[in-house]
Protein backbone atom coordinates (compact mmCIF):
# COMPACT_ATOMS: atom_id res chain seq x y z
CA UNK A 1 0.00 0.00 0.00
CA UNK A 2 2.79 2.32 0.91
CA UNK A 3 4.55 1.46 -2.31
CA UNK A 4 1.42 2.15 -4.31
CA UNK A 5 0.85 5.56 -2.73
CA UNK A 6 4.53 6.27 -3.24
CA UNK A 7 4.16 5.49 -6.94
CA UNK A 8 1.06 7.69 -7.14
CA UNK A 9 3.02 10.55 -5.62
CA UNK A 10 5.87 9.75 -7.97
CA UNK A 11 3.47 9.75 -10.92
CA UNK A 12 2.11 13.14 -9.99
CA UNK A 13 5.54 14.58 -9.34
CA UNK A 14 6.77 13.20 -12.61
CA UNK A 15 3.96 14.95 -14.41
CA UNK A 16 4.73 18.22 -12.67
CA UNK A 17 8.45 18.26 -13.40
CA UNK A 18 9.78 20.09 -16.41
CA UNK A 19 12.45 18.83 -18.72
CA UNK A 20 15.19 21.10 -17.41
CA UNK A 21 18.50 21.87 -19.01
CA UNK A 22 20.81 23.84 -16.76
CA UNK A 23 24.04 24.28 -14.88
CA UNK A 24 24.73 22.02 -11.93
CA UNK A 25 27.27 23.54 -9.56
CA UNK A 26 30.62 21.89 -8.91
CA UNK A 27 30.55 19.40 -6.07
CA UNK A 28 26.91 18.45 -6.68
CA UNK A 29 26.18 14.83 -5.92
CA UNK A 30 24.11 13.22 -8.62
CA UNK A 31 22.00 10.30 -7.42
CA UNK A 32 20.89 7.32 -9.46
CA UNK A 33 17.35 5.93 -9.31
CA UNK A 34 17.92 3.89 -6.20
CA UNK A 35 19.13 6.97 -4.32
CA UNK A 36 22.85 6.20 -4.22
CA UNK A 37 25.45 8.76 -5.11
CA UNK A 38 26.14 8.07 -8.72
CA UNK A 39 28.52 10.84 -9.63
CA UNK A 40 30.08 13.87 -7.93
CA UNK A 41 30.61 16.77 -10.27
CA UNK A 42 34.11 18.15 -10.32
CA UNK A 43 33.12 21.36 -12.04
CA UNK A 44 30.04 23.37 -13.13
CA UNK A 45 28.21 21.23 -15.67
CA UNK A 46 25.47 22.09 -18.16
CA UNK A 47 23.24 19.04 -18.35
CA UNK A 48 19.70 17.75 -18.33
CA UNK A 49 18.25 17.34 -14.84
CA UNK A 50 17.37 13.73 -14.00
CA UNK A 51 15.19 14.65 -11.02
CA UNK A 52 13.26 17.47 -9.45
CA UNK A 53 16.03 17.92 -6.91
CA UNK A 54 18.61 18.40 -9.64
CA UNK A 55 16.35 20.87 -11.38
CA UNK A 56 16.03 22.88 -8.16
CA UNK A 57 19.76 22.76 -7.60
CA UNK A 58 20.30 24.37 -10.99
CA UNK A 59 18.72 27.56 -9.68
CA UNK A 60 18.20 30.40 -12.12
CA UNK A 61 20.72 29.16 -14.68
CA UNK A 62 18.39 26.61 -16.18
CA UNK A 63 15.81 26.45 -18.87
CA UNK A 64 12.67 24.38 -19.18
CA UNK A 65 13.18 22.82 -22.56
CA UNK A 66 9.66 21.41 -22.82
CA UNK A 67 7.97 24.70 -21.87
CA UNK A 68 10.07 26.63 -24.35
CA UNK A 69 9.62 24.06 -27.08
CA UNK A 70 5.84 24.02 -26.78
CA UNK A 71 5.43 27.72 -26.20
CA UNK A 72 7.65 28.78 -29.10
CA UNK A 73 6.33 25.96 -31.28
CA UNK A 74 2.72 26.95 -30.66
CA UNK A 75 3.58 30.62 -31.13
CA UNK A 76 5.11 29.81 -34.48
CA UNK A 77 2.19 27.59 -35.41
CA UNK A 78 -0.16 30.50 -34.74
CA UNK A 79 1.96 33.04 -36.60
CA UNK A 80 2.73 30.81 -39.57
CA UNK A 81 -0.93 29.97 -40.12
CA UNK A 82 -2.08 33.53 -39.56
CA UNK A 83 0.59 35.19 -41.69
CA UNK A 84 0.01 32.75 -44.55
CA UNK A 85 -3.68 33.53 -44.54
CA UNK A 86 -2.94 37.22 -44.08
CA UNK A 87 -0.68 37.20 -47.13
CA UNK A 88 -3.52 35.89 -49.27
CA UNK A 89 -6.12 38.12 -47.63
CA UNK A 90 -8.19 40.09 -50.09
CA UNK A 91 -11.09 42.49 -49.81
CA UNK A 92 -13.42 40.30 -51.86
CA UNK A 93 -15.84 37.80 -50.38
CA UNK A 94 -13.89 36.11 -47.55
CA UNK A 95 -13.90 32.32 -47.53
CA UNK A 96 -12.92 29.54 -45.16
CA UNK A 97 -9.84 30.28 -43.12
CA UNK A 98 -9.85 33.97 -43.94
CA UNK A 99 -13.38 34.19 -42.63
CA UNK A 100 -12.38 32.58 -39.34
CA UNK A 101 -9.34 34.82 -39.07
CA UNK A 102 -11.35 37.94 -39.73
CA UNK A 103 -13.84 36.87 -37.09
CA UNK A 104 -11.07 36.55 -34.51
CA UNK A 105 -9.42 39.80 -35.58
CA UNK A 106 -12.71 41.65 -35.66
CA UNK A 107 -13.50 40.44 -32.15
CA UNK A 108 -10.10 41.45 -30.81
CA UNK A 109 -10.17 44.77 -32.63
CA UNK A 110 -13.52 45.53 -31.02
CA UNK A 111 -12.22 44.60 -27.58
CA UNK A 112 -9.17 46.80 -28.06
CA UNK A 113 -11.28 49.69 -29.32
CA UNK A 114 -13.57 49.40 -26.31
CA UNK A 115 -10.73 49.51 -23.81
CA UNK A 116 -7.97 51.47 -25.47
CA UNK A 117 -8.72 54.92 -26.88
CA UNK A 118 -5.20 56.08 -27.70
CA UNK A 119 -3.10 55.88 -30.81
CA UNK A 120 -0.78 52.92 -30.73
CA UNK A 121 -0.70 50.41 -33.58
CA UNK A 122 1.12 47.84 -31.45
CA UNK A 123 -1.65 47.24 -28.94
CA UNK A 124 -4.08 45.36 -31.18
CA UNK A 125 -1.47 42.95 -32.62
CA UNK A 126 -0.21 42.43 -29.10
CA UNK A 127 -3.72 41.60 -27.90
CA UNK A 128 -4.11 39.17 -30.80
CA UNK A 129 -0.81 37.51 -30.02
CA UNK A 130 -1.63 37.19 -26.34
CA UNK A 131 -5.08 35.78 -26.97
CA UNK A 132 -4.17 33.27 -29.65
CA UNK A 133 -0.91 32.20 -28.09
CA UNK A 134 -2.30 31.66 -24.60
CA UNK A 135 -5.36 29.97 -26.08
CA UNK A 136 -3.16 27.51 -27.97
CA UNK A 137 -0.90 26.89 -24.98
CA UNK A 138 -3.88 26.34 -22.71
CA UNK A 139 -5.49 24.02 -25.23
CA UNK A 140 -2.59 21.62 -24.75
CA UNK A 141 -4.28 20.90 -21.44
CA UNK A 142 -7.02 19.03 -23.28
CA UNK A 143 -4.57 16.48 -24.63
CA UNK A 144 -4.81 13.51 -22.23
CA UNK A 145 -2.03 13.96 -19.70
CA UNK A 146 -0.18 10.74 -20.47
CA UNK A 147 -0.13 10.71 -24.24
CA UNK A 148 2.76 12.98 -25.04
CA UNK A 149 4.97 12.15 -22.01
CA UNK A 150 4.48 8.44 -22.73
CA UNK A 151 5.30 9.00 -26.39
CA UNK A 152 8.43 10.94 -25.48
CA UNK A 153 9.39 8.19 -23.01
CA UNK A 154 9.06 5.68 -25.84
CA UNK A 155 11.05 7.86 -28.25
CA UNK A 156 13.91 8.51 -25.82
CA UNK A 157 13.81 5.02 -24.34
CA UNK A 158 13.63 6.51 -20.84
CA UNK A 159 10.20 5.96 -19.23
CA UNK A 160 11.00 8.64 -16.64
CA UNK A 161 11.70 11.28 -19.26
CA UNK A 162 10.21 14.56 -17.99
CA UNK A 163 7.96 16.24 -20.48
CA UNK A 164 5.27 18.78 -19.60
CA UNK A 165 3.13 19.79 -22.55
CA UNK A 166 1.16 22.74 -21.17
CA UNK A 167 3.49 25.75 -21.10
CA UNK A 168 1.01 27.86 -19.14
CA UNK A 169 1.30 25.49 -16.17
CA UNK A 170 4.88 26.70 -15.89
CA UNK A 171 5.03 29.92 -13.83
CA UNK A 172 8.10 30.98 -15.81
CA UNK A 173 6.01 31.19 -18.92
CA UNK A 174 3.08 33.08 -17.42
CA UNK A 175 5.22 35.39 -15.32
CA UNK A 176 7.50 35.93 -18.29
CA UNK A 177 4.56 37.28 -20.23
CA UNK A 178 3.28 39.20 -17.21
CA UNK A 179 6.60 40.93 -16.68
CA UNK A 180 6.94 41.69 -20.38
CA UNK A 181 3.57 43.40 -20.23
CA UNK A 182 4.84 45.23 -17.14
CA UNK A 183 7.98 46.30 -19.00
CA UNK A 184 5.90 47.59 -21.87
CA UNK A 185 3.71 49.47 -19.40
CA UNK A 186 6.75 51.20 -17.92
CA UNK A 187 8.11 51.86 -21.39
CA UNK A 188 4.89 53.41 -22.72
CA UNK A 189 4.38 55.43 -19.54
CA UNK A 190 7.83 56.94 -19.89
CA UNK A 191 7.40 57.39 -23.65
CA UNK A 192 4.09 59.17 -23.16
CA UNK A 193 4.65 61.21 -20.01
CA UNK A 194 8.42 61.45 -19.84
CA UNK A 195 10.58 60.08 -17.08
CA UNK A 196 9.46 62.79 -14.67
CA UNK A 197 5.87 62.02 -15.48
CA UNK A 198 6.53 58.41 -14.53
CA UNK A 199 8.21 59.47 -11.28
CA UNK A 200 5.32 61.82 -10.50
CA UNK A 201 2.85 59.06 -11.14
CA UNK A 202 4.68 56.92 -8.62
CA UNK A 203 5.07 59.58 -5.94
CA UNK A 204 2.22 62.09 -6.13
CA UNK A 205 -0.69 59.66 -6.17
CA UNK A 206 -3.03 58.85 -4.59
CA UNK A 207 -2.45 61.48 -1.88
CA UNK A 208 -1.70 64.94 -3.03
CA UNK A 209 -1.48 68.30 -1.35
CA UNK A 210 -0.96 71.72 -2.87
CA UNK A 211 1.58 72.53 -0.13
CA UNK A 212 5.02 71.22 -0.98
CA UNK A 213 6.08 70.44 2.60
CA UNK A 214 3.03 68.25 3.08
CA UNK A 215 3.79 66.62 -0.25
CA UNK A 216 7.27 65.64 0.87
CA UNK A 217 5.75 63.74 3.76
CA UNK A 218 3.25 62.10 1.41
CA UNK A 219 5.82 60.97 -1.16
CA UNK A 220 7.03 57.84 0.67
CA UNK A 221 3.49 56.75 1.44
CA UNK A 222 2.45 57.30 -2.14
CA UNK A 223 5.49 55.51 -3.44
CA UNK A 224 4.86 52.49 -1.25
CA UNK A 225 1.24 52.27 -2.35
CA UNK A 226 1.99 52.87 -6.02
CA UNK A 227 4.87 50.42 -6.06
CA UNK A 228 2.62 47.71 -4.68
CA UNK A 229 -0.10 48.53 -7.16
CA UNK A 230 2.37 48.49 -10.05
CA UNK A 231 4.21 45.33 -9.10
CA UNK A 232 0.99 43.50 -8.30
CA UNK A 233 -0.13 43.90 -11.90
CA UNK A 234 2.35 41.58 -13.66
CA UNK A 235 2.35 39.15 -10.76
CA UNK A 236 -1.42 38.86 -10.63
CA UNK A 237 -1.47 38.63 -14.42
CA UNK A 238 1.03 35.78 -14.46
CA UNK A 239 -0.16 33.96 -11.37
CA UNK A 240 -3.83 34.07 -12.31
CA UNK A 241 -3.14 32.28 -15.56
CA UNK A 242 -0.65 29.92 -13.97
CA UNK A 243 -2.96 29.13 -11.05
CA UNK A 244 -5.93 28.34 -13.20
CA UNK A 245 -4.02 26.18 -15.63
CA UNK A 246 -1.97 24.47 -12.95
CA UNK A 247 -5.08 23.59 -10.96
CA UNK A 248 -6.77 22.27 -14.09
CA UNK A 249 -3.73 20.21 -15.01
CA UNK A 250 -3.51 18.89 -11.47
CA UNK A 251 -7.09 17.69 -11.57
CA UNK A 252 -6.45 15.98 -14.92
CA UNK A 253 -3.46 14.23 -13.35
CA UNK A 254 -5.45 13.20 -10.28
CA UNK A 255 -8.20 11.82 -12.50
CA UNK A 256 -5.56 10.00 -14.52
CA UNK A 257 -4.25 8.23 -11.39
CA UNK A 258 -7.66 6.52 -11.14
CA UNK A 259 -7.26 4.81 -14.50
CA UNK A 260 -5.06 2.12 -12.96
CA UNK A 261 -7.51 1.29 -10.18
CA UNK A 262 -9.82 -1.25 -11.74
CA UNK A 263 -12.44 -1.22 -14.46
CA UNK A 264 -15.23 0.58 -12.58
CA UNK A 265 -13.00 3.37 -11.32
CA UNK A 266 -11.35 3.55 -14.73
CA UNK A 267 -14.66 4.14 -16.51
CA UNK A 268 -15.64 6.62 -13.81
CA UNK A 269 -12.31 8.39 -14.37
CA UNK A 270 -12.96 8.49 -18.10
CA UNK A 271 -16.33 10.16 -17.55
CA UNK A 272 -14.77 12.59 -15.07
CA UNK A 273 -11.96 13.44 -17.44
CA UNK A 274 -14.39 14.11 -20.23
CA UNK A 275 -16.57 16.32 -18.00
CA UNK A 276 -13.58 18.23 -16.65
CA UNK A 277 -12.23 18.71 -20.18
CA UNK A 278 -15.54 20.17 -21.30
CA UNK A 279 -15.56 22.53 -18.36
CA UNK A 280 -11.92 23.30 -18.93
CA UNK A 281 -12.63 24.57 -22.45
CA UNK A 282 -14.35 27.47 -20.74
CA UNK A 283 -11.38 28.09 -18.43
CA UNK A 284 -8.94 27.93 -21.34
CA UNK A 285 -10.77 30.55 -23.36
CA UNK A 286 -11.64 32.71 -20.39
CA UNK A 287 -8.08 32.85 -19.10
CA UNK A 288 -6.72 33.79 -22.52
CA UNK A 289 -9.38 36.48 -22.79
CA UNK A 290 -8.77 37.81 -19.26
CA UNK A 291 -5.03 38.06 -19.87
CA UNK A 292 -5.68 39.96 -23.09
CA UNK A 293 -8.24 42.35 -21.60
CA UNK A 294 -6.09 43.14 -18.57
CA UNK A 295 -3.13 43.82 -20.83
CA UNK A 296 -5.26 46.23 -22.85
CA UNK A 297 -6.43 47.95 -19.66
CA UNK A 298 -2.86 48.26 -18.35
CA UNK A 299 -1.72 49.68 -21.67
CA UNK A 300 -4.56 52.18 -21.63
CA UNK A 301 -3.53 53.28 -18.14
CA UNK A 302 0.04 53.71 -19.31
CA UNK A 303 -1.14 55.95 -22.16
CA UNK A 304 -3.54 58.02 -20.09
CA UNK A 305 -2.11 61.49 -19.59
CA UNK A 306 -5.08 63.40 -18.23
CA UNK A 307 -5.35 61.27 -15.12
CA UNK A 308 -3.16 63.62 -13.12
CA UNK A 309 -5.50 66.54 -13.71
CA UNK A 310 -8.53 64.70 -12.45
CA UNK A 311 -7.27 65.10 -8.91
CA UNK A 312 -7.38 68.87 -9.01
Amino acid at each position, binding site marked *: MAGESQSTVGYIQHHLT*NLTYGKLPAGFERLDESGHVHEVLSQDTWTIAHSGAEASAMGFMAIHVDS*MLWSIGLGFLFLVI*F*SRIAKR*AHSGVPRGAQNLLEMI*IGFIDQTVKDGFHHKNAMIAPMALTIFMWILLMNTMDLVPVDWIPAFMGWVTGNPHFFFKVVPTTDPNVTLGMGFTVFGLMVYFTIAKKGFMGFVKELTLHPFHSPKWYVNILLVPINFALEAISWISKPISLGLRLFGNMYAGEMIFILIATMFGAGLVLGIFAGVLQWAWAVFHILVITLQAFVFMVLTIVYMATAHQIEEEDQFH
Partner: protein
Amino acid sequence: MNINLTLIGQSISFLFFVWFSYKFVWGAIRTAMDEREKQIADGLDAADRAGRDLELAQEKATKQLREAKLEASGIIDAANKRASQIVEEAKDVARTEGERLKAAAEAQIEQDVNRAKEQLRSQVAKLALVGAEKVLEASIDESVHKDMVDKLAASL
Protein backbone atom coordinates in the same frame (compact mmCIF):
# COMPACT_ATOMS: atom_id res chain seq x y z
CA MET B 1 8.30 25.39 -9.63
CA ASN B 2 11.69 26.92 -10.22
CA ILE B 3 12.02 30.39 -11.61
CA ASN B 4 14.81 30.34 -14.17
CA LEU B 5 15.92 31.41 -17.62
CA THR B 6 12.67 30.13 -19.10
CA LEU B 7 11.13 33.39 -17.91
CA ILE B 8 13.51 35.43 -20.03
CA GLY B 9 13.15 33.08 -22.97
CA GLN B 10 9.40 33.47 -22.80
CA SER B 11 9.73 37.28 -22.64
CA ILE B 12 11.92 37.40 -25.71
CA SER B 13 9.67 35.08 -27.70
CA PHE B 14 6.66 37.10 -26.58
CA LEU B 15 8.16 40.36 -27.86
CA PHE B 16 9.23 38.68 -31.08
CA PHE B 17 5.77 37.21 -31.65
CA VAL B 18 4.11 40.57 -31.00
CA TRP B 19 6.41 42.22 -33.50
CA PHE B 20 5.82 39.44 -36.01
CA SER B 21 2.06 39.60 -35.74
CA TYR B 22 2.22 43.41 -36.02
CA LYS B 23 4.38 43.16 -39.11
CA PHE B 24 2.89 40.22 -41.01
CA VAL B 25 -0.57 39.46 -39.67
CA TRP B 26 -2.48 42.40 -38.33
CA GLY B 27 -1.79 44.96 -41.05
CA ALA B 28 -2.62 42.72 -43.98
CA ILE B 29 -5.88 41.41 -42.54
CA ARG B 30 -6.97 44.78 -41.20
CA THR B 31 -6.28 46.39 -44.59
CA ALA B 32 -8.35 43.77 -46.36
CA MET B 33 -11.17 44.18 -43.84
CA ASP B 34 -11.10 47.98 -44.04
CA GLU B 35 -11.09 47.84 -47.81
CA ARG B 36 -14.07 45.54 -47.80
CA GLU B 37 -15.89 47.75 -45.33
CA LYS B 38 -15.27 50.70 -47.64
CA GLN B 39 -16.43 48.73 -50.65
CA ILE B 40 -19.60 47.73 -48.88
CA ALA B 41 -20.24 51.29 -47.75
CA ASP B 42 -19.63 52.53 -51.30
CA GLY B 43 -21.93 49.85 -52.66
CA LEU B 44 -24.69 50.82 -50.29
CA ASP B 45 -24.20 54.46 -51.22
CA ALA B 46 -24.36 53.59 -54.88
CA ALA B 47 -27.52 51.59 -54.33
CA ASP B 48 -29.05 54.54 -52.51
CA ARG B 49 -28.06 56.85 -55.28
CA ALA B 50 -29.40 54.47 -57.91
CA GLY B 51 -32.71 54.34 -56.06
CA ARG B 52 -32.91 58.10 -56.00
CA ASP B 53 -31.94 58.28 -59.67
CA LEU B 54 -34.64 55.78 -60.53
CA GLU B 55 -37.21 57.83 -58.67
CA LEU B 56 -36.10 60.97 -60.47
CA ALA B 57 -36.19 59.20 -63.83
CA GLN B 58 -39.67 57.90 -63.18
CA GLU B 59 -40.83 61.35 -62.21
CA LYS B 60 -39.28 62.76 -65.34
CA ALA B 61 -40.84 60.07 -67.48
CA THR B 62 -44.34 60.67 -66.13
CA LYS B 63 -43.88 64.38 -66.62
CA GLN B 64 -42.80 63.88 -70.20
CA LEU B 65 -45.69 61.53 -70.80
CA ARG B 66 -48.14 64.10 -69.47
CA GLU B 67 -46.59 66.78 -71.68
CA ALA B 68 -46.73 64.49 -74.68
CA LYS B 69 -50.39 63.72 -74.07
CA LEU B 70 -51.15 67.40 -73.76
CA GLU B 71 -49.29 68.14 -76.97
CA ALA B 72 -51.00 65.31 -78.79
CA SER B 73 -54.44 66.50 -77.79
CA GLY B 74 -53.46 70.00 -78.91
CA ILE B 75 -52.36 68.63 -82.26
CA ILE B 76 -55.57 66.66 -82.64
CA ASP B 77 -57.65 69.74 -81.85
CA ALA B 78 -55.75 71.80 -84.38
CA ALA B 79 -56.10 69.06 -86.97
CA ASN B 80 -59.83 68.81 -86.38
CA LYS B 81 -60.22 72.53 -86.69
CA ARG B 82 -58.17 72.56 -89.85
CA ALA B 83 -60.15 69.69 -91.29
CA SER B 84 -63.48 71.37 -90.71
CA GLN B 85 -62.02 74.52 -92.18
CA ILE B 86 -60.91 72.64 -95.28
CA VAL B 87 -64.33 71.07 -95.60
CA GLU B 88 -65.96 74.47 -95.30
CA GLU B 89 -63.67 75.88 -97.93
CA ALA B 90 -64.34 72.96 -100.23
CA LYS B 91 -68.05 73.44 -99.76
CA ASP B 92 -67.72 77.12 -100.63
CA VAL B 93 -65.67 76.36 -103.71
CA ALA B 94 -68.10 73.68 -104.78
CA ARG B 95 -71.05 75.97 -104.28
CA THR B 96 -69.60 78.81 -106.32
CA GLU B 97 -68.44 76.40 -109.00
CA GLY B 98 -71.88 74.87 -109.15
CA GLU B 99 -73.50 78.23 -109.40
CA ARG B 100 -71.08 79.24 -112.11
CA LEU B 101 -71.79 76.00 -114.05
CA LYS B 102 -75.49 76.46 -113.55
CA ALA B 103 -75.34 80.01 -114.86
CA ALA B 104 -73.28 78.91 -117.86
CA ALA B 105 -75.73 76.13 -118.60
CA GLU B 106 -78.69 78.49 -118.31
CA ALA B 107 -77.00 80.93 -120.65
CA GLN B 108 -76.30 78.15 -123.10
CA ILE B 109 -79.86 76.95 -122.91
CA GLU B 110 -81.21 80.40 -123.48
CA GLN B 111 -78.88 80.83 -126.43
CA ASP B 112 -79.98 77.51 -127.87
CA VAL B 113 -83.59 78.38 -127.36
CA ASN B 114 -83.07 81.72 -129.03
CA ARG B 115 -81.27 80.10 -131.86
CA ALA B 116 -84.02 77.54 -132.28
CA LYS B 117 -86.61 80.26 -132.10
CA GLU B 118 -84.74 82.16 -134.76
CA GLN B 119 -84.55 79.13 -136.99
CA LEU B 120 -88.12 78.23 -136.31
CA ARG B 121 -89.17 81.71 -137.10
CA SER B 122 -87.36 81.76 -140.40
CA GLN B 123 -88.76 78.33 -141.19
CA VAL B 124 -92.23 79.35 -140.23
CA ALA B 125 -91.96 82.40 -142.40
CA LYS B 126 -90.81 80.30 -145.24
CA LEU B 127 -93.52 77.70 -144.56
CA ALA B 128 -96.15 80.34 -144.28
CA LEU B 129 -95.04 81.81 -147.47
CA VAL B 130 -95.05 78.48 -149.20
CA GLY B 131 -98.43 77.73 -147.70
CA ALA B 132 -99.83 81.05 -148.63
CA GLU B 133 -98.37 80.71 -152.07
CA LYS B 134 -100.14 77.43 -152.39
CA VAL B 135 -103.39 78.88 -151.07
CA LEU B 136 -103.37 82.00 -152.99
CA GLU B 137 -101.85 80.50 -156.05
CA ALA B 138 -99.67 83.30 -156.99
CA SER B 139 -102.35 85.80 -156.20
CA ILE B 140 -100.10 87.22 -153.92
CA ASP B 141 -97.08 88.85 -155.11
CA GLU B 142 -94.14 87.95 -153.07
CA SER B 143 -92.67 91.33 -153.23
CA VAL B 144 -95.94 92.97 -152.36
CA HIS B 145 -96.92 90.80 -149.43
CA LYS B 146 -93.51 90.01 -148.00
CA ASP B 147 -93.78 92.68 -145.36
CA MET B 148 -97.06 91.34 -144.19
CA VAL B 149 -95.79 87.78 -144.01
CA ASP B 150 -92.66 88.84 -142.12
CA LYS B 151 -94.82 90.65 -139.64
CA LEU B 152 -96.79 87.48 -139.22
CA ALA B 153 -93.70 85.39 -138.70
CA ALA B 154 -92.32 87.84 -136.17
CA SER B 155 -95.47 87.63 -134.14
CA LEU B 156 -95.03 83.87 -133.69
